[in-house]
């Protein structure tokens, strides 16, 4: 998929675990895992907002476009 999710990179920079992030954004571990592993088909703006707020970053820090 051309859209790459760099969630693990930002989590490492902020030294935050998946459990902590899931509590902060109020998303289940399984959903976060789907996002982290790149299996997600879509992301809601509310979820993106919550993640950016929790990791103190921009959407572009998490999402990257790379042509196949």
């Amino acid at each position, binding site marked *: 998929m051309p859209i790459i999710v760099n969630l693990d990179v930002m989590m490492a920079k902020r030294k935050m675990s998946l459990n902590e992030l899931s509590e902060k954004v109020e998303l289940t571990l399984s959903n*976060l895992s*789907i996002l982290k592993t790149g*299996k*997600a088909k879509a*992301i809601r703006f509310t979820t993106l907002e919550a993640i950016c707020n929790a990791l103190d970053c921009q959407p572009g820090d998490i999402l990257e476009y790379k042509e196949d």
Partner: protein
Amino acid sequence: MSKRNNFVFTGLHIIAWIIFVGLCVEAGGLIVNFIFSLYKPEFIQNLYQKLDLSQMYNLNKWVFFSIYSFILFISILKACLFYVVIMLLHKINLLKPFDTYVAGQIKNISYYTLSIGLISYIARQTAQSLQHYGFEIDILNQFWADSQAYILMAAVIYVIATIFSRGVEIQNENDLTV
């Protein structure tokens, strides 16, 4: 899911089982009669549900076996159809119905229904053409009276199956939306 819906669903499941058992008994009876008719032609006077095809057998054995094959094939297909319905009712989860398996089974139901409709229609036309040669076919109408209804039902079920498949796609996309 409301309690009433669950009750209706359970009722449908039981009815499907009853119909399936009845169709299996009918198909089994027809198969046994067919085997007996090969070795003991005197049984043709008293086939399943007192069906008497002795006149047809005496006029032309090949016509008898062709028509009987139609009857047998249709009854077996009906039993298979209801088997698929039972499997579907058994495995469907009403809380999350949009499943690939369920969509596939609904498509299979439409294929079986179409097959029954087409074969019934062909059998009926064949039997009607035999009337010109002196065969009595009135007693056979019970086996293929509803061929057009099956074809119509197949078309409707196919449309439902297509919509259901789209529902499965949307459900899968929704499941992978965070």
